[in-house]
């Protein structure tokens, strides 16, 4: 069964505007709204699973491209769609209980679904201006969600995020305008066709630079990362999980990869730029994370470091393709990057959810004020340990496999020093998560935390769900699953600018 692609965007969008109606109905209305929002995220997950392995082009309003707007579902889109829906289903389930601490729950659910709609739109859009519009929908919803607590610190973080995020969006908008001026099209397939015909001129090269800065700001790559360590810890825990888990990847990494690989085509200099940005983020993020005393802030810096791995994998792949190297090596590097992206989405959102559970029980985020919580919060401890083992890269868990692939790819392509840095940053990651285990779960239980209880119910279900995924994600490398889920996504990027020909051919059939 093929699901019409706009459903992925329209269902969360329409439900989002339906939910505030329930806010005036009191307690019962709030419960109905929560159930409805959870139903939407779960059904999006089911639909995302159902649309794996398809390649489809959808023309909105039956206007054929390049006149109309089109939505494209290919391997990369369906991988991201799957990741978005897994994380959002878990975060939504978690917030059913967690958000009882806050007022205006219906508004929260509305903004949450708007963010999901925006991200699905970014992933599915085949039109670069609509990509920008959906990017703004997701960003604006996230600005509001970061400041949802309305305390001084949260509003400050939200304002900072909004200013830097808007600068990023404006860079993207200028780039879109330049691309339109130079190619006469907004459709990504036709832009790519025009570039293949006439080559890059100065305007398009400048647009490329603007895209790198704009999407780099959204992805929090190192020179542009200043907003992330404030914004991610200030948000409510499920939103931190969404932001770190998937938002920076969809708005930053996916959009950048799509534009660099499929629209403009990779060049050697662009490959090197991505490799350098990736390495910078990895090393700087890891060093900054080790020194943190705030649980969620540590996780936020660690996100910057982990994003570096993804960009490094994509950059290495792009570099090998641009040098006409062995496509199998390029494919392996990109596989490592994308696999790490999916893994990081799962374990980082789990880590943020456990930090939320700890914060809800103890009322603090400072590592030094906690201790000995292993006996009081057994499930949180267990899931947090699984996630930490994953992010550090301990064998059966997911993070190990993606890092292993990255190291193998780097060695095969004779980038020995890159492989060394990957292993070194892994060690730094080990240090920071040992620190989390040591301060939060081991050691002496402070006097004031003797009476705390663990929050069960939906929060527990969400955490256990993600912890199971952490253990099982390694199975994605089994050939049967890999050829359906990961390999199509890798092929989209390694095929590069033949994306244009594929989409145009596909839309002729429709």
């Amino acid at each position, binding site marked *: 069964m093929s699901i*019409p692609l*706009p*459903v992925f965007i*329209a269902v969360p*969008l*329409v439900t989002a*505007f*339906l939910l*505030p*109606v329930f806010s*005036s109905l009191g307690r019962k209305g709030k419960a109905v709204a929560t159930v409805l929002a959870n139903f939407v995220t779960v059904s999006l997950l089911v639909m995302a699973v159902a649309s794996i392995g398809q390649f489809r082009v*959808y*023309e*909105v*309003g*039956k206007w054929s491209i390049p006149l109309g707007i089109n939505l494209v579902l290919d391997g990369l889109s369906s991988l991201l769609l799957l990741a978005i829906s897994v994380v959002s289903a878990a975060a939504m389930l978690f917030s059913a209980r967690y958000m009882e601490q806050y007022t205006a729950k219906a508004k929260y659910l509305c903004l949450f679904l708007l963010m999901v709609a925006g991200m699905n739109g970014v992933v599915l859009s085949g039109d670069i201006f609509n990509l920008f519009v959906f990017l703004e929908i997701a960003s604006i919803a996230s600005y509001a969600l970061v400041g949802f607590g309305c305390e001084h610190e949260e509003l400050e973080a939200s304002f900072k995020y909004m200013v830097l995020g808007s600068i990023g969006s404006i860079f993207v908008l200028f780039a879109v305008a330049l691309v339109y001026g130079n190619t006469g099209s907004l459709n990504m397939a036709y832009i790519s066709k025009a570039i293949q015909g006439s080559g890059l001129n100065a305007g398009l090269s400048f647009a490329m630079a603007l895209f790198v800065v704009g999407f780099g700001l959204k992805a929090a790559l190192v020179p542009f990362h200043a907003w992330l360590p404030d914004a991610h810890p200030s948000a409510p825990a499920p939103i931190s999980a969404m932001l770190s888990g998937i938002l920076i990847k969809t708005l930053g990494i996916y959009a950048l990869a799509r534009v660099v690989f499929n629209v403009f085509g990779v060049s050697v200099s662009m490959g090197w730029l991505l490799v350098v940005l990736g390495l910078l983020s990895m090393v700087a993020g890891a060093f900054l994370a080790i020194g943190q005393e705030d649980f969620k802030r540590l996780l936020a810096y660690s996100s910057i470091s982990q994003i570096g791995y993804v960009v490094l994998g994509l950059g290495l792949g792009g570099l090998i393709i641009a040098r006409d190297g062995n496509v199998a090596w390029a494919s392996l590097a990109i596989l490592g990057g994308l696999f790490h992206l999916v893994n990081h989405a799962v374990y980082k959102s789990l880590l943020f959810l456990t930090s939320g559970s700890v914060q809800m029980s103890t009322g603090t985020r400072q590592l030094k004020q906690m201790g000995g919580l292993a006996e009081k919060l057994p499930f949180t401890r267990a899931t947090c340990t699984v996630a930490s083992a994953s992010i550090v890269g301990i064998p059966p868990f997911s993070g190990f496999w993606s890092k292993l692939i990255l190291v193998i790819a780097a060695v095969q392509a004779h980038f020995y020093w890159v492989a060394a840095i990957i292993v070194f940053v892994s060690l730094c990651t080990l240090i920071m998560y040992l620190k989390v285990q040591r301060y939060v779960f081991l050691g002496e239980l402070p006097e004031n935390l003797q009476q705390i209880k663990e929050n069960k119910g939906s929060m527990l279900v969400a955490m256990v769900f993600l912890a199971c995924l952490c253990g099982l994600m390694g199975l994605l490398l089994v050939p049967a699953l890999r050829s359906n889920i990961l390999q199509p996504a890798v092929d989209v990027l390694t095929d590069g600018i033949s994306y244009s020909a594929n989409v145009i051919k596909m839309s002729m059939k429709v």
Partner: protein
Amino acid sequence: MKGMTIIVKTISSWVKVLIFLFGIYIILFGHLTPGGGFAGGVILASSYVLLMLAFGREFAEENLSLPVASKLDCVGALLFGAVALCGLLYGAAGFFWNFIHQEYLVGTDYEFNLVSAGTIPLSNIAIGLKVGASLFLVVLVLSMFRPDTSAEDSNEKE
């Protein structure tokens, strides 16, 4: 005394109706003349903003309270989504498919008729509602959060 002088109040209470009517005109003729949902919505909102400037925020809120405006905002968005989804459901044609008759082009019986162009006027109405309500809300909320000192100052001047 709340708001501005009697001259401003009298004039704006007349002009407000005309502005509102003009907004409705822009929305309804959006598919035939320049304008449409967004432009008309801005004009609708501006009539309420004029009311707010002349009579003070409380008076404007009595006319259109915050919860009602918020509901209208949601209804506008829902209507727009519903028009788009109807296209999808109508004979499984397509998202945003113009499923009502479309004889609006020059040379047909419906040339420049008010009721023509299929779903476009419906979308315009939905967008007008959405934009009007949300712009009004933006100005209302901004006026609520002005610092207390400046509020006292402006009252003293009157």
